[in-house]
């Protein structure tokens, strides 16, 4: 392993969040983003060959060292290993609306879900999963919300393009309706 690989491994190891290829390239003047990606491919290859318990994953537009999923049951037994709190159904529904409709205002979220969104939005903001990204037109120039890089990290998405497209989601009622319309 050469010095650049070792340096990138050290920085990935010491970081508590994903780092982009551009950020990692700061390690050495000779490195550009392509170079960083080649080094990371080399690390991944070596980790897999040697059967390491962790790997380099591509998340939120960057790279992060994470344990491989098959170790989850072992890690659960240790209370010094931090666990991320899961989100409630209300929070997940609200987050789904924000993720697909962003930028979106509170009124529209409430209209879609049929219930108030104030406390859920506060929870999501406190956990830095959403943030105010602008102001809308119209009455009171409402705050508009969008997702954050932390959102991508929480769900392990590389980018917003990783969100399943609408046509990939199975919606039982809508499917049935489409079928009936075709038939009729």
């Amino acid at each position, binding site marked *: 392993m050469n010095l650049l690989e070792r340096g990138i491994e050290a920085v990935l190891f010491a970081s*508590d969040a994903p780092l982009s290829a551009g950020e990692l390239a700061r390690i050495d003047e000779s490195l550009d983003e392509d170079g960083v990606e080649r080094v990371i491919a080399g690390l991944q290859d070596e980790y897999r060959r040697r059967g390491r318990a962790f790997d380099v994953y591509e998340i939120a537009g960057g790279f992060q060292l994470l344990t491989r999923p098959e170790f989850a049951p072992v890690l659960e037994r240790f209370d010094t290993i931090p666990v991320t709190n899961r989100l409630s159904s209300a929070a*997940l529904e609200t*987050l789904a609306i924000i993720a697909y409709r962003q930028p979106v205002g509170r009124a529209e979220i409430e209209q879609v879900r049929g219930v108030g969104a104030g406390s859920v939005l506060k929870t999501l903001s406190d956990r830095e999963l959403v943030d105010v990204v602008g102001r809308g037109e119209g*009455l009171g120039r409402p705050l508009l919300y969008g997702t954050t890089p932390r959102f991508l990290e929480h*769900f*392990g998405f590389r980018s917003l393009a990783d969100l399943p497209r609408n046509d990939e989601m199975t919606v039982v009622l809508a499917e049935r*309706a489409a079928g009936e319309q075709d038939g009729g």
Partner: protein
Amino acid sequence: MSGADPFAVELERFQGPLDLLLHLIRKQDIDIFDIPIATVTRQFLDAVERMQRLELDRAGEFLELAATLVRIKAQMLFPGPVEHEADDPRAELVRRLLEYEHFREAARVLERAERERARHSARGYTPPRPALRAAVAPLHTEWDEVEQALASLAARLSEPEPEYRVRTPEVRVEEKIELILAALADRRRVEFSALVSPWGTRMHAVTSLLACLELAKRHLVRVRQSAPFAALWVMRPAPERP
């Protein structure tokens, strides 16, 4: 007593009125494009009434949709000449149900992704990082740039004084909405002037009024005035019974 009611658990489970309505429709294998509105409305109102009896805080959230269902039922009883599908009084409701179901499905996709991500752990201990230090880069500034800066400063100073504008602090309707809802949290009604008097400016009055209208539109308050120029009352909506 009410805590032991098995329905309490079931009703708490619903994320909102649309979730409950979708559940009723799906459970009975109803065609969403031909909802038997009278039956579904009765079932929905039963559920809401049970919620109120169980004093579930969230019963209020279900009243708006209950009112919508009752209105659609009335429109179905006295149909005008129906020529287009869009004239179906149920059309908007169907659109909302499909839209909601779409996002409910998206939420499940997110939940799966969350579960998958939670099987990976990041490094548990990350050493404290030194505060980001500024490394001074060599300066690349030519004297020309200093002279240009001076010229633009001089040009700016020779311009006529810009018109002086008074900046008024922004008053947001959203803030007023929260104030009004807070004021109504522990009483049934509040006089509009009482909402405005602490600030007393025209801007606050106008914003408060916009907030009241917005809340009334969302059926979260009722606004009543017995006569022109009489006291304007902002009230909590009464739970309406069909």
